[in-house]
């Protein structure tokens, strides 16, 4: 399509991805899940993975991811997605298995499953939504909640002496011999979305080529949990989250 065609009246230049179905999502307007779902659905279609993909949904905001993206899914218990994905992949090596998990799921209750699946180098993709809060249950403190950040269970701000420190899970995973690709992305600007999609593509290529575990962390917004408008949430994320969770590749081999 030339730029002449694109600007012609009535030409479709952007539409709903084929694998993102028409069901209304339960996500709050403006949160990062919508964009990540979109690029994931686009990629699964573009890479011809509709018939091969098995998604593993977490417990948390993305618990209903299986309702929106038209591939086969398994809904895991809280934190256990990497264990579920391990078996799904080992028993079906011709498939492409990915998990989609939040920070509570992947970095708190499921820490052991996350680390050990990555350490075994399972040929899976872990999609990690880090919005520093428990969204689904109403905005409680997460393992990645920043120091000083107010949540329902740290109403005066997270304190290191009581709650410990925000955990940099991707940095831990990057140190494991089983991971081949660990990257931290965001989807708050069009440029960031394009970069993030490229990163996610690399992760799926690794899974297909059986190079080991790929982790794509999305530093994300939770405008409801943070009690900010979508635009303000993006600003707050850029101003506060990126310092603790800097964007870019942590490991790529």
């Amino acid at each position, binding site marked *: 399509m030339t730029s002449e065609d694109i600007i012609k009246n009535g030409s479709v230049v952007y539409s709903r991805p084929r694998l993102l179905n028409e069901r209304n999502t339960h996500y709050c307007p403006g949160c990062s899940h919508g964009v990540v779902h979109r690029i994931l659905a686009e990629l699964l279609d573009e890479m011809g993975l*509709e*018939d*091969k*993909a*098995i998604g*593993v*949904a977490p417990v948390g905001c993305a*618990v*209903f991811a*299986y309702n929106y993206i*038209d*591939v*086969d*899914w*398994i*809904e*895991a*218990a809280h934190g*256990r997605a990497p*264990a*579920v*994905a*391990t*078996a*799904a992949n*080992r*028993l*079906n090596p011709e*498939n*492409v298995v990915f998990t989609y998990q939040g920070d509570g799921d992947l970095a708190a209750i499921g820490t*052991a*499953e996350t680390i*050990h699946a990555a350490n075994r180098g399972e040929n899976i993709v872990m999609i990690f939504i880090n919005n520093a809060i428990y969204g689904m249950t109403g905005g409680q403190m997460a393992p990645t909640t920043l120091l000083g950040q107010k949540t329902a269970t740290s109403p005066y701000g997270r304190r290191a002496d009581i709650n410990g420190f925000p955990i940099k899970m991707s940095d831990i995973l990057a140190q494991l011999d089983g991971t081949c690709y660990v990257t931290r992305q965001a989807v708050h600007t069009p440029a960031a979305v394009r970069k993030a999609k490229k990163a996610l593509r690399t992760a799926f290529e690794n899974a297909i080529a059986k190079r080991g575990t790929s982790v794509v962390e999305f530093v994300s917004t939770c405008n409801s949990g943070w009690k900010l408008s979508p635009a303000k949430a993006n600003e707050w994320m850029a101003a506060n989250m990126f310092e603790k969770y800097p964007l870019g590749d942590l490991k790529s081999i």
Partner: protein
Amino acid sequence: MAEEIKLMKGNEAIAHAAIRYGCDGYFGYPITPQSEVLETLEELMPWETTGMVVLQAESEVAAINMVYGGAATGKAVMTSSSSPGVSLKQEGISYIAAAELPALIVNVMRGGPGLGTIQPSQADYFQATKGGGHGDYHLIVLAPATVQEMADFVGLGFDLSFKYRTPAMILADGIVGQMMEKVVLPEPRPRRTAEEIAEQCPWAATGKHGRKERNVMTSLELEPDKMEVNNLRLQETYKRIEENEVRYKEYHVEDAEYLIVAFGSVARICLKAIEDARARGIKIGLLRPITLWPFPSDRLKELSSKIKGILTVELNAGQMIEDVKLAVECKIPVYHFGRMGGIVPNPGEVMNAFNNCFGEASNNSDL
């Protein structure tokens, strides 16, 4: 050709039988007294022959969730553990039952509660037969008394779990897991092909492969009306299992005046006690439930009109006795004799317990 008779431990028989059944995957974690299952599988390297996946997980929690993941793709998968480890698996077992997935779980019971002891026990009867995890569900629970049954129940457990799309458990006591006996292993059969799985498990999350609708394995449903329907469907399955799958064995029941009810290796000790008693003219029979759930309640109720009393003998503080009492509707006296903490009674102790319960009546027998 004559059957090939082997000598092995019950735990080893589980491993051999799994490979021969065409099991697709085993996910385990070491814990005494069942570690030989994982050890034997690692030694036999079935991935080189049948393609079976064997994986030592980082925890019992991970292992059962691997089972969940494998079962969700339509594969025949299993795990084994012992009591404290099986407690850890309960969340995953509840999810497997709720998502209506077939799977086999082996519990080689040790004494509890807590870390307890590594010696044999039957104290997980309640946990196994009443659900174990959260929510209204049942497992099909098979109680082997011999190494032969350890081998045979692997296939039976898988077959039943696929037939009803519900998890099955082999509930063995530590004795059956650890003791060596003669066993004839089942005939090897190939693992199912992808085509066979697609045909037998059209619900499985295998990748869409041209399917129009995606398959989603989940236990989540937030709409109460639909969630109740899901629960009713599970209960319907359990009703069919109760109607069709009750299994038990009877010994010397025809002319029995009293009955001992015992399962697993304890039933064998009781059988010896009964035979000794019969030599002295005391007519005791034995009913050994093979399925602890579904429980042979109808048969016990039937027998209760012909016998004077029942003694349950268990390696616990009295768990199965509750189901026996429910079955006979308290129409005849039901007593319990149990040892705990890893102690296994001998036939003499069983007879002493019987005499303590029914002494007057048995003394009046024509000796």
